[in-house]
């Protein structure tokens, strides 16, 4: 989106309140969605729940192609479509809903820095494990990614995506890494997050911010997704404060809200629970 278009959109956005019929689109939950997309989708859901904005989750096999940026998840609010957490945060702020207004400049800088740490390390590691580890790619990623399509399109699309991700990995210098090095990076990233969180309930003490939503999305998804080995989730399990952080957000924003609103299973899209 160009800057002018962005400014235009945010002006329009400010005019209208958040509608009741907002929809979040993601790939099919059971058969198709991949670890990284699931994490991003959960982060957006957690963010919107922290703000108390209602959104209905719809699974579509072609969600990736419906999205304006080619990335999932995206939300459809009124007559606008916004994809990914960063732009969605801007969009909700334009509508007057924000989690980080109480932070000062230094805290905001710190929050942005940690969000980039999660994107730079956890998200990239997820992509690496999905597409560059041949075991995972052959057993899980390619079959799942291409599950809605028939032969020969399934092979073409899966290999095309794999080629794309691998090109990205070599551009950022991850192509030469081994799986062990990637696990080591994940471990370092979790250690940094764990140190930053300390004994606080959220990263910036009492109030959740978009950073909490992002970290929760990634850690929770890694913890509850079965891969070829469980080495990735083991890395997180060694940090007890991160585990209880995930548990706390799950309880506060997913379980209790679902119980209160009685929306039932159709709105409950987080997948399996911790415990």
């Amino acid at each position, binding site marked *: 989106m160009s800057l002018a278009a962005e400014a235009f959109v945010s002006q329009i956005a400010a005019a209208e309140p958040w509608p009741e019929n907002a929809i979040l689109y993601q790939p099919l939950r059971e058969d198709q969605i991949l670890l990284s997309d699931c994490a991003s989708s959960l982060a957006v859901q957690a963010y919107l729940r922290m703000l108390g904005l209602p959104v209905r989750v719809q699974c579509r096999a072609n969600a990736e192609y419906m999205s304006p940026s080619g990335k999932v998840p995206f939300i459809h609010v009124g007559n606008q479509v916004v994809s990914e957490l960063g732009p969605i945060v801007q969009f909700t702020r334009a509508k007057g809903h924000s989690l980080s207004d109480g932070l000062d400049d230094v805290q*905001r800088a710190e929050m942005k820095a940690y969000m*980039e740490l999660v994107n730079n390390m956890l998200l990239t590691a997820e992509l690496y494990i999905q597409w560059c580890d041949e075991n995972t790619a052959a057993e899980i990623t390619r079959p799942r990614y291409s599950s809605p399509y028939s032969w020969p399109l399934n092979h073409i699309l899966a290999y095309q995506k794999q080629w794309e991700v691998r090109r990205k990995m070599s*551009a950022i210098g991850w192509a030469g890494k081994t799986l062990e090095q990637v696990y080591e990076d994940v471990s370092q990233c979790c250690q940094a997050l764990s140190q930053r969180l300390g004994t606080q309930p959220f990263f910036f003490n009492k109030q959740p911010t978009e950073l909490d939503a992002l970290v929760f999305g990634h850690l929770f998804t890694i913890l509850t997704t079965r891969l070829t080995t469980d080495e990735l989730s083991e890395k997180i399990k060694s940090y007890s404060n991160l585990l209880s952080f995930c548990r706390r957000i799950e309880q506060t924003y997913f379980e209790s809200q679902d119980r209160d609103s009685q929306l039932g299973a159709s709105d409950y899209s987080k997948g399996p629970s911790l415990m």
Partner: protein
Amino acid sequence: MELLCWGGDWDLPSVHTESLIVLAYAKFAGAKLTVKLVDWTWRTITATVPQLHHEGTSVTEPTQILNFLRQNRFNADYELSAKQGADTMAYIALLEEKLRPALLHTFWVDAENYANLTRPWFASHSPFPLNFFVPSRQASVALSRILLTKAEAPLHSVAEVEGKIYSEAKECLNLLSHRLGSSHFFFGNTPTSLDAFVFGYLAPLHKATLPSAQLQQHLKQLHNLCQFCTNILKSYFSEAASGSAPASQDAVDANLQKLTQLVNKESNLIEKMDDNLRSSPQHRPSRPHKPEAKPSSLATARNLTPA
């Protein structure tokens, strides 16, 4: 230890961000590096720069080199708490994700800067016939990195991402400026690896004479970041600093290095007080006092250095 890196220009020890990071960290940690320039050799095209050689092993990539130096007891982050270590990682990720794409664009993709500054510099520092290949190869690496990491779909053109990467980079500079505030370094009074990274990213942008300079203009408005670069250049890379360097380079102990810095700072303070005294009305100086103040402070620093 021998470091292979791109040479310096524009008042910088190296024009290359990654090389600058390593050079700055080595100064902060008191590691003695023999700098070997890659300029005018065939390694401009074969080697990954910067590259550290030590007793048969070679390490590339700034993060790996910094880790290697830490393992060899050259640690500038010795005094950081665990949380500050975590912050360091986070801010380095912020620089990589938000600032690096725009820097690559400014130096390698922006047509005016590339034609008038970057290509001439790298071409004139590569041997014939590599001067025809080295700049264009680096430019295409930079462009593909920007497109692959920032473009929304694989076939989009660079024009569509320009606006986005520049606004992200300006935001990143603002965040860094807020974080630095009025302090000398990011974590108190001694420089750490985060300072080395920020310096490596900002110094070329601060010093290069760019024909098309929208990001540079933005940096110039953030005075504390400019001051930060100037300070590091002055206290670690200027002639005066290299004059006092031999004394500190013998000191392997990082604490000794810190003591030296402290003494330097104190002698600067004394110098300032001295200046103030001399410029006070009852003691009008008969000669200009600025030039002679410098060597005297150096002498004190040297005398007080235990090594």
